């Protein structure tokens, strides 16, 4: 069996879930009071990498860039899905990187891993929401990119990758594309891993058992790199390497509610009948 080396990019983001996230009086995010978690969309990238690991063997490296606290994000990645080894790029010189400087840093680190056959990223982060970092990193690596991937098949012998993807991110329109390895894959939140053989499921079960143990001692599998390790020129990274200027952040005002809500008790037959009368024409295709 030809095994494959995959790399997964992940990022720590504020935990935006109800009860976790904290805002100050002016509506600004209180970063210090809000816990950092793995970017939720990255879970799909990890699932795609796991499917590749299960089907074809090899190894999966998970990489993140951020402050030392991002170690926990990598631990989460390892515990929730699977990782053979973990890499954190952490350095004061890298602070305030925009997506471009981040892409230069990440692509350099990925090349340092050797040449991975597939690089996976999630569909945009929950904080920046740009969706730029993946494609820009891919551009630096000079690989073909397939985005919005919902299903994946790789032929390691032929070194080809076939993917089902949503066209324009639309669930109604799905196309199948094929490309050569190495390739860069952005997993869509609709991504579904597929394990249709018992051997794959047994391998998955083995990996899960091993993952549980490894996550407890994840730091043994963690490598931390700074810009010197990666031989990066400080002029091209961090704030100095970031052409993007964020002038200000404006809170989005709450949308004015123009519609009036009428509460109906489900046990109130007459009330429910009125609801049905209103909705029936819509169900029939009216507007």
């Amino acid at each position, binding site marked *: 069996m030809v095994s494959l080396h995959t790399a997964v990019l992940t990022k720590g983001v504020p935990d935006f879930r109800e009860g976790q996230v904290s805002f100050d009086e002016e509506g600004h995010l209180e970063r210090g009071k809000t816990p950092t978690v793995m970017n939720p969309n990255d879970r799909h990238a990890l699932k795609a990498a796991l499917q590749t690991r299960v089907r074809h063997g090899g190894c999966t490296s998970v990489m993140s860039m951020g402050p030392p606290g991002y170690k926990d994000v990598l631990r989460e990645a390892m515990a929730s899905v699977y990782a053979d080894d973990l890499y954190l790029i952490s350095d004061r010189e890298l602070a305030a990187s925009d997506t471009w400087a981040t892409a230069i840093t990440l692509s350099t680190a990925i090349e340092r891993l050797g040449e991975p056959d597939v690089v996976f990223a999630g569909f945009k982060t929950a904080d920046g929401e740009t969706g730029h970092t993946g494609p820009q990193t891919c551009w630096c690596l000079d690989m073909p990119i397939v985005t919005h991937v919902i299903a994946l098949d790789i032929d390691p012998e032929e070194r080809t990758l076939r993917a089902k993807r949503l066209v324009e991110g639309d669930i109604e329109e799905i196309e199948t594309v094929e490309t050569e390895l190495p390739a860069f894959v952005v997993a869509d939140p609709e991504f579904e891993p597929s394990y249709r053989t*018992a051997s794959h499921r047994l391998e998955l079960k083995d990996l899960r058992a091993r993952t549980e143990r490894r996550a407890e001692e994840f730091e043994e599998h963690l490598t931390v790199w700074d810009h010197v390790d990666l031989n990066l020129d400080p002029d091209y990274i961090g704030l100095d390497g970031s052409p993007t200027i964020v002038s200000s952040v404006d809170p989005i005002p709450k949308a004015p509610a123009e519609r009036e809500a009428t509460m109906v008790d489900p046990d109130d037959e007459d009330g429910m009948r009125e609801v049905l009368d209103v909705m029936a024409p819509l169900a029939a295709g009216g507007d």
Partner: protein
Amino acid sequence: MSEAEEYEHFEAVVVGAGPGGAAAAATLARYGVQTLVLERGVDAGSKNVSGGLIYAEESAPYTIDALFEGFREEAAERPVTEYYLHNVAGDAVKTFDITRLHEHDTEWSDAVLRRKMDSWLADRVHEMARETGGGLLTEVRVNGLLREGGEIVGVTCDELDPITADVIVAADGVNSELARDAGLMDWEDPSEWFQGVKAVVDVPSDAIAERFGIDEDEGVAHLFSGDLFRDVRGGGFLYTNADSLSIGTVFHLDSLVAERAEPHELLDALLTHPLLAQWLGDEYREREYSAKLVPDSKKVAHPEPHADRLLLVGDAAGQMQAQGPIIKGMNHAVTAGALAAEAYAEARARGDPDSAGERYARKLRDEGVMRKLRPRGYEAVRTLGERDAAENVVDSVLTSAVGRTGVRALSGLLGRLYSSPRLAAMVPDTRTPYVTLPTVIAEELGERVGDENRVRPPSLEERIGELTYDTDIGNPHIALTDNSYEASGAAVTACPVSARDFGGGCYREETIRTNGSEETVVSLDTQPCVECGTCAIVAETEWEHPRGGKGVEFREG
């Protein structure tokens, strides 16, 4: 290349991770056979219910603790050290100590809860099978047999592509879809089945010690028969677990149907009887309500439970011995599973793997399993006793003054008779041993129980509400093929999660009025289904299990 050669192949596929499947897989793995075990529950045991006492018989070639070291310490609840049979008439009770009967041919017997037990077994099985290149997978439902040229060569699944195997062990339970696919078992005659319902009741271990007068390493089993279940043929049981009680009732399905009895009400009749007040105390907390169909091995244990490469094990083959106070299922499944594995290993060694089925059937006979499941004594009594006329004569003699005098005169002997294993094996399926005799015994010899029982069992709605379901929305696993009341009305009462005038269950009656005429039909909602299989027998259905991981999930079992 034939089609089958394109499929994934394992030397052995075992379907179902209960005790039968676990015993088969562990034994196959010991013989070095590459073994894949497929279990449809989210966890082994999550679909399984039993009374449940598991036995290790002195005469059996295999026992669960011999196959799985540490079983009793880690997977079981308590040993049964005392065994009583209570004859009940109203609030009069006559108790016989039947510990001697229980101990006949018994090396040990433990109370178990299936979720804990089966998931423990599954972990061991997975480790052992993994060594052979196989392993155990949960949440995979095997939905049928794969055939090539009309011959069984493997299995088909909802979640996986078809798999071929040199031997297939179907240990997929009382509602085995594989046994039915192979035409070896059916769901036709209610008189061939029992239905049991059970409540697992929370009782702290110190309260168990106090109320039952036992130590940590002791346990009690109680059986109940008589008039507390009206005229429905069957009985009740109570077993002590580590920190809970298993209390249930088991009835002949044909009798439940004939009496239009509601199983949960019969369970409540037991739970609220004055006799149980001493054990249940004032605070009743039910952990789980469950139900199960039980094959009557006397009638359905298949003498040749195999076809091509398929071997049936345990409930799937009807290997459940319920004869009077003797209720043994899991031990036979364990023996059968290990014998099936042994048969395949032998057949393979002789270069004739296709002879595994015949070898297995022969082993079931030679090792005495079939004789226990289908005792000869029962056949003799059955021809005499299961005729209405004979039953009525016996019943009227028993209830007459002469019969009652006899019962009083024989009181000492009766206790001994109840302890006779040979007699227990002969008990006919009539009202006499289940209802009439215990009632007369209690009336003539019993003492009044004065305790006040304060138990208020939960309603059926509350019981269903406490169960865990992962509903396969839009994909009901049972379809009614005839919704007339005549064909399927029996399910409304016999289904353990349905009842007359209850809208929250599976089956309900509906009256349809059209142009002045009225018709009663039956409707079905599979959401609260506990997958017991009762309706497959008493109603006209197309019955399947839900997909892997879907449907009800028992936490106690």
